[in-house]
């Protein structure tokens, strides 16, 4: 069975193609959205999802969230004193999703399609694939998020030949993809984006404004403040103002944030949305007026300011009949169905496009002298927005007499000089000696449909072939390290799945206890103590009763609960 997974910055979802439709799989709590958060309980067991996110304000040192932002880096996130790589934390989320899907479908899941932001680079994609491996899933393919969204909408299309623009503002990334759907082919024509612009940035901006304004000079636990700001951001999607209240030194501090004020604060971020949109249209040579639909995806696209901006840029209304939070997971499920060759889906084929230009460093000799050389010139081999899978090659020659070795450095980016691009890896070739220019090397780049790159260099005179192994790049884990980390993860104690509900409730009650003051606080404290005592007695019926009682109490008090 293949499932489609949307591994998001804020929330993750898992979906499957079943009986001619996409089905999103609920987790142990009955929600389809599983927060991408991982925490360490007091008993040393790992918590994933809502219980972990609810513990974020109360146990910030034991909880990690938004780790997708660090994918492809070697940054360690600490749960207590134990450091985890972003891949490992993602793997824990994936593992929990896998368990949910297995419980729901009643059969083992070993393969998955995982969605990644279109603007994820090679390193970030490899990290995502490694996370899948760590979770015990064979990642059949990586699917870009905007493509997934377009696939979900493609099912219900009325016209056959149409240009779609998907604008995906997620928790951490912004992606724009222009797709052409014709004759059962879904072709990505152009992709652009900003991998450091998402809903979390809007929260950051408000947090900064709070600390510069009403919250100046006081220290509030960052996680608690972020939570309040996140709530306010959501409230402002429907209301005209929201209140941010935090407790400092036993005194509540309240700040009312109006929608206009929020929009002014987010203006510098909104401005940054324009350039990727323009670039995608320009790369695909498409006039904005010829687009048939503009599709919104990503949780942060629910912000009115964002919707208004998109609509006004194009002078028409975007569509979001499928919930922007679910659309990517549904699309991934469609893709999973397509790969499993499910009936009813056979007719759609899709091709993706390379998000970045890939090439090598070269040296250009414009005269005879050694000084008449320009170093560090970027030579593109696969241009951005080339349809993938693609395989292109270029021939390079030696520049010095009796040159014995050649260092092929692989870069990604759009700048003329390699120093402004990102180094992906390098390849060292041994060459037979000879006069300059005699030895020629054929460098072939092969980009597969998941957006992963393979580089082969063939020395033409000897026929020797070298294949690139990315070395010295801190963001990529080597296979032996993956095996080691996998063994490490296997040792971790995970909370039993059926315990998730109790853990989530306890975490929520603890958060409320910290947020509230006076009588309310005492009520929560007492109820929680009783609930924990009931859990210890281990009588299933009593636990169920106590759980519904506590849950009702919390619902009546807590208006700030969100998924």
């Amino acid at each position, binding site marked *: 069975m293949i499932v489609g997974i949307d591994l998001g910055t804020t929330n993750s979802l898992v979906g499957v193609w079943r009986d001619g439709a996409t089905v999103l799989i609920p987790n142990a709590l009955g929600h389809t959205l599983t927060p991408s958060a991982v925490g360490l309980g007091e008993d040393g067991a790992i918590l994933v999802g809502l219980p972990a996110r609810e513990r974020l304000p109360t146990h910030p040192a034991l909880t990690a969230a938004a780790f997708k932002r660090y994918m492809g880096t070697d940054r360690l996130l600490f749960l207590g004193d134990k450091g985890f790589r972003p891949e490992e934390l993602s793997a824990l989320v994936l593992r929990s999703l896998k368990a949910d899907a297995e419980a729901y479908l009643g059969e083992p899941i070993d393969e998955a399609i995982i969605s990644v932001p279109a603007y994820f680079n090679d390193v970030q994609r490899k990290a995502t694939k490694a996370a899948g491996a760590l979770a015990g899933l064979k990642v059949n393919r990586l699917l870009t998020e905007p493509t997934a969204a377009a696939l979900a909408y493609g099912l219900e299309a009325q016209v056959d030949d149409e240009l779609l623009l998907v604008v995906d503002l997620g928790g951490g990334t912004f992606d724009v993809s222009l797709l052409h759907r*014709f004759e059962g082919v879904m072709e990505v024509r152009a992709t652009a984006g900003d991998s450091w612009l998402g809903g979390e940035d809007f929260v950051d901006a408000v947090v900064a404004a709070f600390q510069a304004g009403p919250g100046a000079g006081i220290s509030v636990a960052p996680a608690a403040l972020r939570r309040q700001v996140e709530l306010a951001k959501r409230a402002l999607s429907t209301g005209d103002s929201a209140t941010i209240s935090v407790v400092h030194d036993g005194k509540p501090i309240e700040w009312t944030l109006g929608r*206009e*004020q929020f929009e002014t604060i987010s203006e510098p971020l909104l*401005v940054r949305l324009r*350039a990727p949109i323009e670039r995608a249209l*320009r790369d695909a040579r498409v006039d*904005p007026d010829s687009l048939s639909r503009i599709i919104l995806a990503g949780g942060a696209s629910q912000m009115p300011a964002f919707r*208004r901006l998109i609509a*006004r840029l*194009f002078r028409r209304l975007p569509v979001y009949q499928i919930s922007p939070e679910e659309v990517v997971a549904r699309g991934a499920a469609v893709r999973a169905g397509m790969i499993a060759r499910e009936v009813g889906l056979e007719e759609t084929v899709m091709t993706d496009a390379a998000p970045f230009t890939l090439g090598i460093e070269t040296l250009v000799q414009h005269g005879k002298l050694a000084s008449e050389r320009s170093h560090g010139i970027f030579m593109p081999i696969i241009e951005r927005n080339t349809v993938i899978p693609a395989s292109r090659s270029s021939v390079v020659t030696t520049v010095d007499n009796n040159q014995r070795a050649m260092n092929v450095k692989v870069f990604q980016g759009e700048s003329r000089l390699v120093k402004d691009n990102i180094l992906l890896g390098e390849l060292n070739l041994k060459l037979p000696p000879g006069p300059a220019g005699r030895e020629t090397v054929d460098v072939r780049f092969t980009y597969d449909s998941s957006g992963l790159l393979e580089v082969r260099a063939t020395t033409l005179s000897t026929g020797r072939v070298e294949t690139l192994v990315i070395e010295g790049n801190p963001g990529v884990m080597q296979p032996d390290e993956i095996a080691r980390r996998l063994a490490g993860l296997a040792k971790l104690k995970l909370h039993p799945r059926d315990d998730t509900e109790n853990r989530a409730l306890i975490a929520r009650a603890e958060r409320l206890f910290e947020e509230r003051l006076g009588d309310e606080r005492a009520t929560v404290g007492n109820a929680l103590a009783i609930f924990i005592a009931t859990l210890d007695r281990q009588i299933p019926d009593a636990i169920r009763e106590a759980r519904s009682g506590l849950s009702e109490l919390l619902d009546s008090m807590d208006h700030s609960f969100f998924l």
Partner: protein
Amino acid sequence: MWDELGIGPCDDPKAIRRAYAARLKKLDPDKDLAAFTRLREALEWALAETGDAAAQPFRPNRARPQHPEAAQDVLDDLGEPFPQPARDESRNYGLAISDDLVVSDIVADADSKWLDVAASDRALLGALESALGRRDAAAAMAFFYSAAATGAVPLHDAPALLDRLFALAVEDTKVERPAFRHLARTFGWDRAAPEQGATPELRQRVLARLAAEDWYDSLAATAAPRAPATRKQANLARLMLGRIGRYRTPRVDRVELKKRLDEFRTHEAWLCDRIDPAWANNLEKRWRRREIVWLVLLGLLPLVMLLNGIRLFVAEASAGTLSLGVIVAAPFVAAVLLWILKVLVTELYKLAKERPVTVTGPATVESVSGPPDDAEARLRWLEQRAELAYEAMYDAPAGSGSAAYYSDAKEFLYDAIALANRLGQVETAERLSRRLAHIKAVYRSQFI
């Protein structure tokens, strides 16, 4: 190629795509990459044959011309003074606009009236026009940010407005560096974009200014106290900035100094408000003096050796004790020494002849008669040439002919503005800028 697609030659992009789709469904690109590549190439080739837009080189959308007069009408209708940009200390731009027409949920609002340009949008665009008109770059930038963030500027109109904004901001040295850099980065003007053929020269100027600012910043960073640079490097940077060495040159590397001076020459036009060109000339003079002293000292040794050798040779020859080896070797040694001396003398001659170069402006002018040397006369000359080119633009054949004259007129005016600014003739510079804007507006509205 047509065989690859499985159809005969045809010029209907839809039919070609249909054939491609049919073939594509029969193969698995991941398994048979070579077949997919062939099919894809065939598709792209066939589409190019038909002239399908997707396969053509990109031509940017011709923006609807912006008419300052129209914006003025809008403002007259409103009967209100222009809103001024909010001067917020924490941000260097920003403008809160009240918009009554914001609706919370766009789908719920079926009549979608807010898709029209609302009154506040028109006020904002009018204010932007007015700021551009009175050449207030800082205000124009603030208005543009707001307009871009709220979508008041639709996609079609943004490139034309951005061109005007950058044309203004790039010349205005009062626009603060971080603000200018932020502007360029936000709208993707910090990278060369060959596909944006409409304004390559303006883009070059923006890039040149950014490069100059970066160079200046790195210099300032090296000069800063406790910078991670060696003492010599820091001293060199301080010397370049004129912070030290007014009377005595500190110990700096000659080669490095020359390198820095040459770099300064390429950026001079953008930095002359911060590094006085006269100071750079002064430094260059000092560098030249040191270089001459060094060369003379270097030349003394071979000269002494040569003279001494000749003296010995003559003495030995007259004494008759000259060995065969010496007779053979002496001319070679003498030749080598003479050659070294010759090289040194040529260098000295070059140094003595070379005068400090005066950079005439960021843009270069190719001309028939050549500009006069006197700055005032040169300014008049540039303006005259611009007007001639502008007149010729009307008489030229439509299309490339008028475009060439338009570009000439623009170039001459850019140079004239830069020169006027350097001469401190602010009014002249402003008058020329207005003229430039007028010519641009005329060209865009009547010739494209």
